[in-house]
């Protein structure tokens, strides 16, 4: 999967370089909207970090932004993310007198969807930094796998995601660019497994690196 992504990135980069002109400062057109596809790495925080401590590169994000006025844009983001970690011998206690001691494997599968507003400081420039805020929800599945036992809880939530990032266009007439963004996400989601694990809200940091298709 990563190979496909890298191959796509390389192809688009080459296209962009071939199309690039020698004016690095600003675009030769005014963008009306753009679409992003990025690879997402998640760093869990707080109680979420106690559940799964590993950073996870298993995540992708698809987004769209439409310029409303000046640098102000509105749009959407849908994502797919998974964080996981294997733990050594631990005992899981059920509520019915059962207990299992074995290697534990924990993972959370997330499908976030958000409405986003973003403000681009220099929307017409080759490098266009922005600040944004995503508001929406997630569908999450929290799995505690103890060998062949798969104990899981599903939850919907409300989430807020402030984000900073930048679009880097590959040429002043190119419709392709790169995206680098960093966000903090807070959700009302919870992880609860009887007496074994309980969290309050869930928090995480996400690093996004991807491609942008800019529409004139």
């Amino acid at each position, binding site marked *: *999967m990563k190979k496909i992504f890298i191959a796509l990135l390389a192809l688009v980069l080459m296209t962009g370089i071939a199309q690039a002109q020698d004016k690095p400062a600003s675009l030769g057109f005014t963008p009306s909207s753009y679409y992003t*596809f990025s690879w997402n790495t998640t760093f869990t925080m707080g109680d979420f970090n106690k559940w799964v401590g590993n950073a996870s590169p298993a995540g992708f994000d*698809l987004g769209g932004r439409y310029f409303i006025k000046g640098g102000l844009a509105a749009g959407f983001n849908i994502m797919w993310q998974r964080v996981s970690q294997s733990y050594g011998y631990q005992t899981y206690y059920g509520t019915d*007198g059962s207990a*299992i001691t074995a290697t534990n494997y924990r993972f959370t599968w997330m499908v976030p969807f958000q409405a986003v507003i973003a403000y681009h400081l220099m929307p017409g420039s080759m490098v266009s930094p922005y600040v944004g805020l995503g508001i929406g929800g997630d569908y999450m599945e929290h799995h505690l796998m103890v060998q*062949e036992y798969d104990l899981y809880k599903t939850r919907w939530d409300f989430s807020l995601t402030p984000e900073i990032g930048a679009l880097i266009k590959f040429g002043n007439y190119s419709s392709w660019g790169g995206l680098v963004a960093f966000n903090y996400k807070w959700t009302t989601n919870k992880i609860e497994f009887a007496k074994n694990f309980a969290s309050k809200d869930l928090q995480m940091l996400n690093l996004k690196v991807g491609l942008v*298709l800019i529409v004139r």
Partner: protein
Amino acid sequence: MKTKLILLFLGAGLILASCTKYPPSSDRLLEDLAIYTKYDTTVNFAKFKKYYMNDSIVKISDKDSGMYYNAQVKSLTDEIAVNMKNLGYTRVTNSSDTSIDLFLAASYMVNVNVNVYYPGWYWGYYPPYYWGGSGYYPYYPAYITSYSVGTVLLDLINVNKEDMVGGKYPVCWNAYIRGLLTGSHTTAQINQSVDQAFKQTKGFPGH
């Protein structure tokens, strides 16, 4: 531009479609010791005093099932006896002693799979003539569904006549220790696993 947009969404769709919810099973299913226990939460384990356990265990195989004894089995039953003593139970050596409260049936699976089973059934292989009757689980017992070579099964059966239901003795605790007698584990690991099976049972006296 429309073509590029379609291509972007198609590419994204392809990559997203290849993203599975579950991580690869090689990451998460480690074939090693796993200890499963379950007990009847309505039972007061402090009321029992005496128990019987055979020196041999039942070997469950698709070829030659029967009683089984060797140095590993001795180590296993010795450790069970230590744990039962720590719980305050006295081992009785004569199975026909009428003062016995509990019968500990130990079995060992060589090369068979365990199927799902339900309350009211007694799946255990221990021959009933050793302990005087048929049994049943009053709860969903701990079970395993995957291939389970070397699994040790322990059933603690309440053989008090007054606790019989429908002419059957209730199994008040059961344990599955997967992969214990595969020959790849040391005596220390066997003992630790048996200790853990008792330790993780919250219903036992003093736990």
